[in-house]
């Protein structure tokens, strides 16, 4: 597996994927991650703390958003850094769920195309939910 960044230009889309979140996806993530905060599976608790309803774990959104980049990069050892800001919750309706769309574009290229910053645009039900979502990768030797 090799990653050649020299053929890329800023603005190129390197990966995209659409995800459907349902309540069972939130329960599965709760179990897998150990985050059992009830605002991610109980509407009554979510409403009692002033939310509109059950929302996805921020770390679930962060976790799935990087997957298309992980697949594109090929070797996970080439990923140096991944950061996000949680700017808006993803509410997951009991019956209709939620849609999360991810588009990964080249945000910046380092000198000699040795590194690249991949910027993620992540929307939940059509609204941006992550800010400054950036993955730094380096080219394979």
């Amino acid at each position, binding site marked *: 597996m090799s990653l050649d960044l020299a053929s890329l230009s800023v603005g190129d889309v390197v990966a995209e994927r659409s995800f459907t979140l349902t309540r069972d996806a939130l329960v599965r993530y709760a179990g*897998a991650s150990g985050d059992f905060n009830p605002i991610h599976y109980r509407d009554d608790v979510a409403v009692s703390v002033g939310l509109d309803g059950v929302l996805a774990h921020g770390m*679930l959104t962060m976790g799935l958003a990087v997957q298309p980049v992980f697949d594109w990069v090929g070797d*996970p050892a080439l990923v140096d850094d991944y*950061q996000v800001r949680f700017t808006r919750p993803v509410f997951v309706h009991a019956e209709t769920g939620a849609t999360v769309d991810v588009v990964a574009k080249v945000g910046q290229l380092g000198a000699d195309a040795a590194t690249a910053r991949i910027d993620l645009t992540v929307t939940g039900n059509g609204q941006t939910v992550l800010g400054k979502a950036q993955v730094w990768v380096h080219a394979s030797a």
Partner: protein
Amino acid sequence: MYEPTPPYLVGREKIREFSAAVFSVNPLNFDVQAARAAGYDDLVAPPTFGVVVQERTLAQLLATPDADLDFSRVVHGEQRFSYSRPIVAGDELTATLTVASVKQLGGHSMVTSESSITDATGAHVVTAISTLVVRGDE
């Protein structure tokens, strides 16, 4: 300074479970032969798996008596991972928490904490940095 967390042994099935939960379709997360063919000793964990180990340091932080943090008022503001290498099944990981900063902002507290995760040899694997926003009284 906080005590390092007890060693966390990364299990193969835990990686499969976490990978399915973040909608991975990557063979390196599920197929041992594919991971070995790519040069890894065992299954590779997804990029955000470090949160499972970091969570143990956040529990230390929230349990600090003088921190006075109300969990129901804590909102995740930012998250970052800086990697030395991917986490692989069989790794024995230890996290050490250092609170980087507490800032007051319009009645809210912003707690930025950094957890350095190392393997059994003491080598750095990943640093996880979280900013938690503790909402003030309304």
